[in-house]
């Protein structure tokens, strides 16, 4: 199994600023994903973080607002840019390793973001 850590665990930010969230996996994973989860709600996929190339964004999410980097197979960052109170949410990263034995997506503990 993979252990995923995220930094920071929580932050309170001012409107108009940006926050970068880091995601570290303790082993190489095939893919890394970034999700947003409103309290009490389900997970919404923001994008797939591609190693060495631009991330693949889901409908409704754009690179200018959520730039993502993945410089290697175990690390990724998500930046929430020009924040507004509507960006207050929990941001989760996950790592995926798929093979014939099984498909497992491991999640980090999340970053709780509050925008004032």
């Amino acid at each position, binding site marked *: 199994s993979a252990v995923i850590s995220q930094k920071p665990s929580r932050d309170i930010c001012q409107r108009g600023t940006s926050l970068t969230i880091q995601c570290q996996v303790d082993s190489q994973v095939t893919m890394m994903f970034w999700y947003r989860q409103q309290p009490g709600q389900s997970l919404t996929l923001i994008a797939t973080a591609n190693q060495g190339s631009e991330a693949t964004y889901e409908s409704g999410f754009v690179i200018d607002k959520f730039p993502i980097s993945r410089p290697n197979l175990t690390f990724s960052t998500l930046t929430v840019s020009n924040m507004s109170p509507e960006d207050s949410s929990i941001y989760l990263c996950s790592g995926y390793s798929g093979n014939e034995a099984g*498909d497992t997506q491991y*999640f980090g503990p999340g970053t709780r973001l509050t925008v004032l």
Partner: protein
Amino acid sequence: QQQVKQSPQSLIVQKGGISIINCAYENTAFDYFPWYQQFPGKGPALLIAIRPDVSEKKEGRFTISFNKSAKQFSLHIMDSQPGDSATYFCAASMRSSNTGKLIFGQGTTLQVKP
């Protein structure tokens, strides 16, 4: 259709009872159906998963029942314990797409009363 519909939204069960959560999907290309458990302040953790070539999978007190023709699957928690109180998400994916993407249900908040 990429949606996975989950019900009920919330569930209260007495200790020792059976908790049942249901999910339904439309896309017959889905071929992997995991259930995730999430405690407050934590990320979701894989609980149990099933592929459509079997109708049931059991791991301890947790069982997935899968009905391919009805495009439905459910999670049964036997002898429910207060420690099972959490939010449960069903999900679906297409291994053949090789994207690893999961489509999540809306979630069920389970409370097990002592």
